[in-house]
């Protein structure tokens, strides 16, 4: 696949340090440490309810970390209001896609560009259409009436409209047909390689995710238990047993 992994010395783009997040009295993240370096694709895998989506949202301050720190390019953003974090050009396609269902595709993309300079709106729009030509055909359709796959494209497209430097993707392949999964993953790779976009993604589809990512983290029960280069993680027996059992068939097909 890709060329050598990006360097990991220097200031990480995103640094999560000892983050604990609670829902009321229930603890969801029990002290998470994690780094994403500029130019990397980092995958976070883990079972249902492990706390992956909670981490993605905690990075945006909703819910807020009760302990620990989150640093973006060395700057502490732990207590920053959510919309201020968005202004730092971190974008998220969150769990459940959260398309503005009674807005058109175009309006959803305009919402994505909320914090971007209006001067490069057309250029960013063109980039999204190049990645997902389907969206161009559906431009004036209401978001809620799109198919699941189209909604996923729109969620990613909307996130790209802010011209982010760090893109957070929460289960971009969820509920998509294999062909579409491939398309989404190749779009992510293209963004990373050509536009130097840094990507931090959560995936159930561990095989695809670890194959794509430079590095991966495994989360169990609100804690990071294993981390390492994506390909190396794929070879580890405990990961194969826990996350790849159901993916044998894909694995065979995935061999290119």
């Amino acid at each position, binding site marked *: 696949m890709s060329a050598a992994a990006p360097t990991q010395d220097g200031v990480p783009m995103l640094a999560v340090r000892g983050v604990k997040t609670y829902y009321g009295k229930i603890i969801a993240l029990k002290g998470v440490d994690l780094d994403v370096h500029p130019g990397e694709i980092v995958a976070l895998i883990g079972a249902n309810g492990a706390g992956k989506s909670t981490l993605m949202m905690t990075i*945006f301050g*909703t819910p807020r970390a009760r302990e620990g720190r989150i640093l973006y390019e060395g700057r502490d953003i732990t207590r920053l*209001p*959510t919309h201020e974090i968005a202004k730092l050009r971190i974008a998220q396609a969150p769990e459940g896609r959260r398309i*503005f269902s*009674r*807005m058109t595709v175009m309006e959803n993309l305009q*919402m994505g560009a909320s*914090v971007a300079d209006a001067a490069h709106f057309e250029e960013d729009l063109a980039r999204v259409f190049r990645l997902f030509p389907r969206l161009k055909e559906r431009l004036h359709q209401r978001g809620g009436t799109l198919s699941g796959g189209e909604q996923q494209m729109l969620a990613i497209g909307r996130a790209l409209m802010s011209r982010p430097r760090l893109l957070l993707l929460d289960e971009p392949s969820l509920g998509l047909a294999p062909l579409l999964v491939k398309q989404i993953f190749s779009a992510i790779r293209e963004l990373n390689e050509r536009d130097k976009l840094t990507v931090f993604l959560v995936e159930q589809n561990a095989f695809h995710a670890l194959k794509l990512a430079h590095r991966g983290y495994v989360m169990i029960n609100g804690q990071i238990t294993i981390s390492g280069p994506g390909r190396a993680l794929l070879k580890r027996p405990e990961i194969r047993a826990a996350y790849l059992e159901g993916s044998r068939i894909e694995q065979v097909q995935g061999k290119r």
Partner: protein
Amino acid sequence: MEYFLQQLINGVTLGAIYGLIAIGYTMVYGIIGMINFAHGDIFMIGAFIALIAFLALVAIGVTAVPLALFLVLLIAMALTSLYGWTVERFAYRPLRHSFRLAPLISAIGMSIALQNYVQIVQGARVKPLPPLIGGGYTIIDSPVFVVQLSNVQILVVLTTVALMAVFSWIVANTRLGRDMRACEQDLKMASLVGVNVDRTISYTFIIGAALAAVAGIMHLLYYGVVDFYIGFVAGVKAFTAAVLGGIGSLPGAMIGGLLIGLIETFWSAYFSIEYKDVAAFSILVIVLIFLPTGILGRPEIEKV
């Protein structure tokens, strides 16, 4: 027939006023899922500010009616907006992440506080405004009944239609309108894309209060009097209008306002004027039981 036509004219006028107030209820509900019980009192404050402004303008010699009306409109909208903003900022926002009923209780408290404040500062008695806009048109001059359309009625309806058109355009086409709709559909996602949710909510209260202020001016011109209690009665009717039209829906608030105005007027005209408020409240109950989503409401209001 003549009598009917006259009631229709009166009903539409009243409905326009209710519709303007109802927009404030429906917008706030749409975005933060809360009934702003103090909104009727904001309307009452708007009417009082208008009255004071009219009298002050006359005192300093501004007697040309169109100019005075224009200035009063600006003054009342600006000051009433300030009230609307303040109520949200200090009585509701601090409670936004509190338990669900907290803002509602706070709103009822604000409603009582505003009423008492006006009662103390302005007195409990009804305050009159000398008729500023006289005249009108006689539409049918039959021996049985004379149908009239007053200039005030024309002003009320035209102003309302114009404001609703402008406001609908803002919601559909501007950045602020889009942000408001985004907040209405998914507050959390709106903040993720960088919308300042608190500020958008503030604007919603400001716009709602400005529209209520216009309704207050119209009410003042139409009836010629105000007192501290008009906000409660008109508020409940406008709220009923919002529920009838489908709470959260903008065109619903307009249609609901019109319907409530018509129902109240016809009820008074053909049945019993004493029970006109009962009619409006009965409709609220009936709608809540049999048509909880209203005429244009969405069955699935996905609140997050």
